């Protein structure tokens, strides 16, 4: 397994009742790269994000982060009846690795070992479905498509509160102010983050009183406050002016370099995607239809069909 892969998504399927929102999606995010997930409206992009960040529990599939499985599920119970898609047994003890033609036993065992290296719970019935906060704790932070800032709090408190998880303190030391040094450190870091984003002058304003573009920036600042190594951006340019989008583009690259981040983003804004991404995955109706570097995607017929509609002749 390539050690440079930060996020590895394998065969992830998400069903709501009979609707398959994400179908057998697999992708990789290498370290330090910017990867984009694109697709028409309703293609299942945000659902894929929600599966990765623990908001939803996927029906089937495996997600690893820095080689460690973080989400691992297989269709059981009620889902068993409805899910009969690809890889239905892949994450259960019933799974048998298919023997390739003319393969020696040795090679077969090696393949098995390799699989176990990615997924240490392979060939067992183990499920992993952590809550979102545990995944954030691993170092994955995200923003939301429909901005979800804490609306009764100031800009400053929005960022400061995101630092809560990493603070070395407990209920008593926080209440009785014995961890005041830790609190001051958190505040200092918050100031730095806000200054970097040019948000410091708004620090005492209510988060929701900011203009739209700045709210998106604040969301990114808040995500950075959790000290992530992987940043998931859900349509960061939605509702921005062309000028703001250009700035955003630079900004994403800047924070990537500064914090050694890997970035995985969903976007509709094709200019932005083509300019910024190192690699692109395209999905439609939950399934992958293409992947490649931006240049190839621009000319890919399947992608063009998905966006513009195929000619039915």
């Amino acid at each position, binding site marked *: 397994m390539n050690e440079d892969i930060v996020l590895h998504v394998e065969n992830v399927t998400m069903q709501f009742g009979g609707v398959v929102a994400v179908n057998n999606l697999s992708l990789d995010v290498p370290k330090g790269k910017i990867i984009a997930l694109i697709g028409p409206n309703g293609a299942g992009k945000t659902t894929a994000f929600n599966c990765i*960040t*623990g*908001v939803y529990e996927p029906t089937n599939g495996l997600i690893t982060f820095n080689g460690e499985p973080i989400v691992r599920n297989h269709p059981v119970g009620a889902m068993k009846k409805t899910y009969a898609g690809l890889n239905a047994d892949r994450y259960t003890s019933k799974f048998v690795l298919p023997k390739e033609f003319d393969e020696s036993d040795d090679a077969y065992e090696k393949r098995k070992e390799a699989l176990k290296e990615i997924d240490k719970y392979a060939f067992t019935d183990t499920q992993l479905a952590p*809550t*979102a*906060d*545990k995944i*954030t*704790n691993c170092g994955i*932070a*995200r923003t*939301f498509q429909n901005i*979800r*800032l*804490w*609306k*009764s*709090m100031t800009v*400053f*408190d929005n960022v*400061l*509160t*995101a*630092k*809560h*998880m*990493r*603070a070395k*303190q407990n*209920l008593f030391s*926080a*209440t*009785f*102010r014995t961890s*005041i040094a830790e*609190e*001051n450190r*958190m*505040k*200092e870091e918050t*100031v*730095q983050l806000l*200054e970097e984003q040019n948000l410091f002058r708004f*620090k005492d304003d209510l988060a929701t009183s900011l203009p739209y573009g700045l709210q998106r920036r604040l969301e990114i600042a*808040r*995500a950075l*406050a*959790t000290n992530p190594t992987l940043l998931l951006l859900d349509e960061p340019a939605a509702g921005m002016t062309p000028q703001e989008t250009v700035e955003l583009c630079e900004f994403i690259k800047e924070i990537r370099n500064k914090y050694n981040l890997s970035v995985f983003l969903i976007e509709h804004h094709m200019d932005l995607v083509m300019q910024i991404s190192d690699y692109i995955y395209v999905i439609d109706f939950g399934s992958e239809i293409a992947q490649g570097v931006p240049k190839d995607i621009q000319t890919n017929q399947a992608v063009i069909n998905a966006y513009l509609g195929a000619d039915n002749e």
Partner: protein
Amino acid sequence: MFKKINNALNPSLRHPEQERASRINKVGAIILLAILYVFLFVLDNFLPAGSFTGMLIPVLRKGAIYALLCVSMNLLNGFTGLFSLGQAGFMLIGGYAYAILSIPASQHAAVYQYFDGGAIQFSIPEFFSSFLGAGLGSFVGSIICIIIAGVIAALFAALIGIPVLRLKSDYLAIATLGFAEIIRAIFQWNGFGIITNGSNLLRKYTALSDIRWDIGSVSLKFGTVFVFLIVTICILLIVLLINSSYGRAFNAVRDDEISAEAMGINLFKHKMMSFIISSFFAGVGGALLAMYQTTIQSAAFTSAMTYEILLMVVIGGIGSVSGSGIAAFLYIAANEWWLRFLDSGSIGSIEVSFFRGGFRKVIFSIAIMIIVLFFSRGIMGDKELSITGVINWFKNRKERKLAKKINASKEGE
């Protein structure tokens, strides 16, 4: 560059002016509290007993207790956004725990007359009195009993919280209400009578009148001071919590659960913390209420009691500690004192036929409905009362009047 870093190192990140204001507020609050305590001490001991002090003392005591209950409910409902209606249940646990642990051993036979003197045969205040003297002994003993009462309430909350806190908004409300009713039924059940005295009331435990200091022939009373002391400490603790990192996390959970969780805040853990802490203080409040009432009976802790506290919180402003405090005193004073005449059948010497028993409550509930419907932010909204705030308000009064005039003349044009 240097300047920036200095600014960043400044822990509070405030302007010097804000710094000054916060200092004024802190010093002012301490001075005001000191004056208040001196006044309460004088009130307890040296003011002649008359109809005025006879009303003022109970109103102050009950008001302070309800202030604590309101703040503890506000922590949960206002700051964490959990709509819980279990307050009465936790108060009941606290009140009973306190009473059971502080009934003197010699009184057990009389109190538990239907249960052969009950199962518990010791009293914590009595134990301390045996070597600290009656006054100090009851003081130390009752404080320990109050803390135990809070802890027991908190333990129950931890147990109840495991299933209940997974529920959302109104389901949470109804489930906590249900648990409060179950707690009441358990305490009324004669099967536990040897501990709870079944459906009979508990009495003869250490009450507020026992908190006193005998010097020779002079006996100094500390009843009201004691209540205020406990309430001040508890509210101070809650305020410190609310202004800490955990308090901010609670607010985040209230504002948006999904993004709070996405930012690494463990929802269940933080909800549980808030629930347990709120219940601890509800238990303490219940214990103080037991001390105030001198008798306690589980039948009184109905959901109506929770509703009353909730309405006080709403009147004060959901999300304001000082609002809760103000509302509690106003509510208790109006209910128990100022509006009494509505029940008495006359204003001064004028007879009014519809002023009879219960009319006060009708007027009261209409007033509450008006507040709920038209002033839903309550007295304080989510703001806090501060000394500098009040000073500025008075300073700016002239400017506001001027601004109003200007606006009026503009509209007139």
